[in-house]
């Protein structure tokens, strides 16, 4: 239990996937312009990352590892993630068209979100148990969402600020991210597994 709480605290704050580990930068920069889209992407990411960690962990532990096929890990994992995203998209379209409207466009983007593949690879590398791995996936996703939402909030306000032309857009977003990252560094050393 302690370990689970540590995992949650560490991967949301101390070792934030976006601001400290540099995973998921593309969607972080691309989707943070408006709060609405950020919220949609966050929900989709949490969902997919949780499922992805679960699925890849199971395949690694019960198929790849026993058969000694570690070198097929990358191919297997990315295929699982791509298939999962496709599945989620199809299911969502059938079950809840309204939700699909809101989230739908982000789902294919999640396949190339390095955070998803990273979390799957790291869950196995850190030798987590199944429960720990899923909690890790969710915590990392929440960390990503936290960074994304904060950034979206800031960017909405930046719209009204006088930013020099060359710095507008991605440049100022990155500089802001740098300041956020600096702030999050305050959590460093607080807790480790």
């Amino acid at each position, binding site marked *: 239990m302690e370990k689970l709480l540590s995992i949650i605290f560490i991967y949301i704050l101390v070792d934030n996937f976006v601001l400290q580990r540099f*995973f998921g930068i593309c969607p972080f920069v691309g989707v943070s312009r408006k709060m609405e889209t950020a919220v949609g992407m966050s929900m989709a990411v949490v969902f997919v990352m949780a499922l992805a960690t679960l699925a890849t962990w199971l395949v690694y532990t019960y198929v790849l590892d026993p058969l000694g096929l570690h070198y097929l890990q990358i191919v297997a994992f990315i295929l699982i993630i791509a298939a999962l995203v496709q599945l989620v998209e199809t299911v969502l379209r059938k079950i809840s068209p309204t939700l699909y409207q809101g989230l739908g466009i982000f789902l294919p983007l999640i396949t190339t979100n390095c955070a998803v593949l990273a979390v799957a690879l790291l869950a196995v590398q850190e030798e987590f148990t199944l429960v720990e791995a899923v909690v890790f996936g969710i915590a990392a996703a929440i960390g990503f969402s936290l960074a994304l939402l904060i950034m979206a909030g800031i960017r909405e306000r930046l719209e009204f600020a006088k930013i020099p032309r060359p710095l507008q857009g*991605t440049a100022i977003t990155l500089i802001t991210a740098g300041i956020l990252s600096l702030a999050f560094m305050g959590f460093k050393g607080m807790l480790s597994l």
Partner: protein
Amino acid sequence: MNNIYLRDIFRGIVTDNPTFRLVLGMCPVLAITTFMINGLGMGVATAAVLICSNVVISSLRRFIPEQVRIPCFIVIIASFVTIIEMLLKAFQPNLYEALGVFIPLIVVNCIILGRAEAFASKQPVLRSLFDGIGIGLGFTIALLIISTLREVIGSGTILAETAAVTQLFGPNFEPMRLFALPPGAFILLGLLLGGMNFIFKRLNVK
């Protein structure tokens, strides 16, 4: 004269530079660039995968049906990434350790899938090859610029982690550690992008 191929290379390095113009594949750019040698290694590894996958996908472009093209591309790219990983582990273990989890993440580097989709699946093999070389070079150069800056300002050395490491400013120099850490990476890249935008605006290049 192979004009069009040379132009492909120029395009990949300058006009369509994946990092500074297309703003793709950001994750390794920020994560790996603490030392020059790591930036160089990652650039070469990514370029290798890009070139190989561009060539293969281009050769197979008439055989792969549209509906399954994405999974096929993924398998091809992932296979090359795995091969590169195994080769690095066997012949360049230090680089392998330094790049860590970012080697497998080359698979989801938007540059590679993006090029496959936008270019290689539609263009003949030779052009795809040179496109891969151009973009790969552009990416590597961008990585080199950023990692050199980060290493010089953030650690005060060049070519650290290699045999040719040199302390640039003497042993008592305290570098701006911020640039070796995550916040510095973000800020430096942001400033560089801003600078690039300014330069391109001035030169009026589309």
